[in-house]
């Protein structure tokens, strides 16, 4: 595809190329540089010069090479066939690239994002004469066994049109003309494919309030620091604290309909792990393979830096597209720091004036723009859909005061801070209960209280209070040792220890423990607090702490995350009864 020539290369400095003799080109236009057809994007216009960032290695490009314009912005191809695929940062399908260029990624290959050959079963939902407007569904395609793909009129079609003709139910390629619409004299032909510029949010009718949590199956998140469906959260943590593991767990078990997983500047082997593992994992809610709801974007750290910058936008555009069909979409960005560093690197090459730590001054704006694309929306098609963003942050030196973490904190409402000390003791997920917070508690508490006979909010507050007390007591213990504390205070330490090892820790590799249902979480929280209450009563009767500790039911509580499966939550009720019996018995011995 050779477009018109818009200028010649003037200077090459890594992925940033200056072109001169510009005839006509617009900001953010997609261009191809040189005879190798390297893909790039116009990021600056200055008189007869323009600056282009290229998405592939620039080796071999020389001054004087022609630059070709394409007339459109860098866009995503949106059509049936996205789910289950793996793309690079500019939405080139990696499986296809492998067929074309082998095990190593060659330069200058372009190919369509979804297969233009595959047939999809098209079911029209409109008939001739029906009124349509931008964003409306006109047909459906069963994309995977769990995703019904709605084919929508592109949102850039303005005003009310009417259907002139629509294809009958049948198997078609995505590029076939399936719909003709008309308005007065004008007429448009549509296929199942639409293109949307990645840096522009897809339009919606209205933003709605957030009212239910995105259930992840991770206890520390769901029960202590819940994320709302349509909300935003940041997971900051130094290397080795488990950001990627947490992201993987959420991608596997959260109750979203569609997962978009962006590996942005991370390790190649991690993406391979997801690719190999996900098809074999079964969603606990639908019993279908997890790959049937997942779209992967892999721009590993050694792939070109400008494509890394684009990968975040490619991912969110795809997420918004599925949101517009009425799905709840969760997007994992691992890691947004690499994206910010890509901005820094490109900005440095363009010789822009830096702000903090070499990052460009517009860093905060870009982060805000990205997180604002999340939300619970009323779509143009009058259905409700949501996009939740879970962004990992890799602070330099593990120091949360660096610019990316700080700016991200301003624009997210939930914060899961990972703690190095917990990770070193192999307490996973290493989410610190002291640094983390969630501003969504108010929004989701009524949902949770419904599920827990009204106990959740109270339980959560009590547990947070105990953990805070424990922190203070620990400081005393560090100075004088645990023996100096009275039993009642030692009991707080004991309960918090149980809470940490039986509730907050979760083993991602254990068949039972890796996913914890809402009901089980509620029951576990109840029994631990019941233990605290009963134990306190017993202590008042004069029972020594050591005796309480040795009860066999206490041992069962510690192991319940492994022994009680999600389908047999009643076992915890039985355990509570057993605990009560043993406590009463023990109390009876000292009651005189």
């Amino acid at each position, binding site marked *: 595809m050779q477009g018109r020539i818009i200028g010649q*290369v003037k200077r090459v400095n890594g992925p940033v190329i200056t072109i001169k003799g510009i005839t006509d080109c617009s900001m953010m236009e997609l261009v191809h540089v040189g005879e190798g057809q390297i893909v790039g994007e116009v990021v600056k216009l200055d008189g007869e010069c323009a600056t282009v960032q290229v998405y592939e290695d*620039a080796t071999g490009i020389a*001054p*004087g090479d022609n630059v070709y314009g394409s007339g459109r912005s860098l866009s995503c191809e949106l059509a049936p066939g996205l789910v289950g695929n793996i793309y690079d940062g500019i939405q080139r399908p990696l499986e296809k690239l492998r067929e074309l260029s082998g095990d190593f990624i060659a330069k200058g290959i372009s190919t369509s994002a979804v297969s233009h050959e595959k047939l999809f079963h098209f079911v029209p939902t409109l008939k001739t004469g029906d009124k349509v407007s931008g964003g409306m569904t006109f047909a459906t395609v069963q994309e995977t066994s769990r995703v019904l793909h709605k084919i929508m009129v592109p949102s850039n079609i303005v005003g009310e049109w009417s259907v002139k003709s629509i294809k009958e139910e049948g198997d078609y390629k995505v590029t076939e003309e399936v719909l003709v619409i008309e308005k007065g004299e004008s007429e448009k032909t549509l296929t199942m494919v639409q293109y949307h510029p990645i840096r522009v949010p897809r339009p919606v009718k209205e933003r709605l309030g957030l009212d239910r949590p995105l259930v992840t199956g991770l206890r520390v998140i769901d029960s202590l620091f819940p994320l709302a469906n349509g909300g935003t959260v940041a997971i900051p943590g130094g290397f080795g604290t488990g950001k990627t593991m947490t992201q993987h767990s959420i991608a596997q078990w959260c109750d979203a309909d569609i997962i978009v997983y962006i590996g942005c500047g991370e390790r*190649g082997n991690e993406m391979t792990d997801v*690719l190999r593992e996900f098809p074999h994992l079964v969603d606990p809610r639908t019993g279908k393979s997890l790959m049937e709801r997942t779209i992967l974007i892999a721009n*590993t750290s050694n792939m070109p830096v400008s494509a890394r910058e684009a990968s975040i936008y490619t991912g969110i555009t795809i997420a918004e597209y599925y949101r517009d069909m009425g799905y709840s979409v969760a997007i994992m960005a691992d890691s947004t720091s690499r994206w910010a*560093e890509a901005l820094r690197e490109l900005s440095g090459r363009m010789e822009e004036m830096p702000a903090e730590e070499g990052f460009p001054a517009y860093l905060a704006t870009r982060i805000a723009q990205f997180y604002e694309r999340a939300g619970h929306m009323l779509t143009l098609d009058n259905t409700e859909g949501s996009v939740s963003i879970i962004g990992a942050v890799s602070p*330099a030196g593990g120091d949360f005061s660096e610019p990316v973490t700080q700016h991200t904190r301003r624009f997210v409402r939930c914060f899961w801070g990972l703690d190095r000390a917990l990770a070193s003791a192999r307490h996973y997920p290493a989410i610190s209960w002291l640094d983390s917070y969630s501003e969504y508690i108010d929004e989701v508490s009524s949902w949770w209280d419904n599920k827990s006979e009204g106990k959740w909010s109270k339980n959560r507050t009590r547990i947070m209070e105990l953990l805070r007390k424990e922190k203070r007591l620990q400081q005393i213990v560090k100075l004088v040792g645990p023996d100096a504390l009275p039993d009642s205070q030692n009991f707080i330490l004991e309960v918090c220890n149980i809470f940490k090892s039986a509730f907050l820790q979760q083993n991602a590799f254990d068949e039972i423990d890796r996913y914890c249902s809402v009901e089980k979480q509620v029951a576990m929280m109840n029994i631990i607090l019941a233990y605290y209450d009963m134990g306190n009563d017993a202590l008042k009767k004069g029972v020594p702490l050591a005796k309480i500790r040795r009860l066999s039911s206490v041992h069962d509580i510690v192991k319940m995350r492994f022994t009680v499966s999600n389908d047999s939550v009643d076992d915890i009720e039985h355990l509570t009864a057993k605990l009560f019996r043993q406590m009463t018995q023990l109390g009876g011995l000292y009651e005189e």
Partner: protein
Amino acid sequence: MKSDKLFADVDKSLLAGREYVGADRIDGPLVYMRNTHPVGYGELVEITAPDGSRKTGQVLDTSDDAVCVQVFEGTDGLNLPDTRMHFLGEPLSLSVTESMLGRVMNGLGRSRDGATDPRGEESRDVNGSAINPTSREYPRDFIQTGISVIDGMTTLIQGQKLPIFSGNGMSHNQLAAQIARQAKVRGGKSDFAIVFAAMGVKYDIAKYFIDSFESSGVLDNVALFLSLADDPSIERTITPRTALTLAEHLAFDKGKQVLVIMTDMTNYCESLREIGTLRGEIPSRKGYPGYLYSNLAELYERSGKIAGRFGSITQLPILTMPNDDISHPIPDLTGYITEGQIVFDRDLSGRGIYPPINPLPSLSRLMKDGIGEGMTRDDHPHLSNQLFASFSHVKDVRNLASVIGEEELTEVDHLYMKFGEFFEQKFITQRYDEDRSIEETLDLAWEALSILPSEELQRLTEEEILDHYKG
């Protein structure tokens, strides 16, 4: 006259033979030249000094006005009027061959041992290309290094990149050499090769490695790329790329299991900073260039396994943390790219413990899929987990003891003190030539844990405790 007009009609292939005389500016390792034909970014340059000697360079920046070339051998002896440059029209490449094994070469792959340059079979771009993530095979084959603390707690996997974070004066070289000597894949015979890249290290350290390879009889399977401390610093920026290009050839074309040792990455990063500063780039943290992460990733990501091919590349980069600071940009960015890290501890080293590895901040990310039943032993995953948890508690107890005195500790905490002592002196500590099998390592770990009461071992299952606990 504008140079692009002058050369507009000339066939590019003819220009490749052209040689230019006279540089405009020489600044450190960089040479600037005006009025050339349009030169491609990243092109290879052959430079002839006034005395006739040849040097190699690469285009760092090109515009229709001037070209900036970095000279790997340094610019000593060049002058402005008589320097000749020949732009070869192709990227910097290495002619790879299996016969490089057993040879000593410089950072560009030229002979350093007096013999003629190795004759290659195929020319490869030293920058390599990214492995398509869909082509990778997830690494899960356990490598037994014979070192307990590594095998037991931060297991090395074939195809992994696991750096050693050390400090000046600690025994990282001994450890790397010991791993190179002892590393083996259990159960299978495999074709092993070692690629060794030295960047800015002293001659005696390179000598130490060569002697160590020689004495264990593996020297014929080692390719050495040496860019020593007195070689031009700029050569260090290309040395690991050359080495990895050969490693890729050996692994993915010849089916060998390749271990790449790169030392010292800190010197490599210093050289990058030097060039960045000379070019007036905007620095980020501590003056290092903003692209340090991407640049390091281009090296570290060249490890792994490819589905359907037999070989693998395992990387063992060594870096000395400036001032033992793990949050310094070099170890920090490295840790974000590599699959874990082995961290040395000044305190352990000071107490004469070898290897002075602190297991708590150390980590192997690929360990989870390479250990356990059928790979090492079924109790390994829980056992290592328990070691981490218990040793982590030892640190708390020691802190407490230093405040309230050891006598005041509870009975259990006394046992923890004893466990900590045994763990450091018996489990971590081993001799330079001590090669422990994984069974020995795991049994030793049980011996250590048996010091503690069995109720304290919450990460282990009851069956495991029943089978192995010796209390």
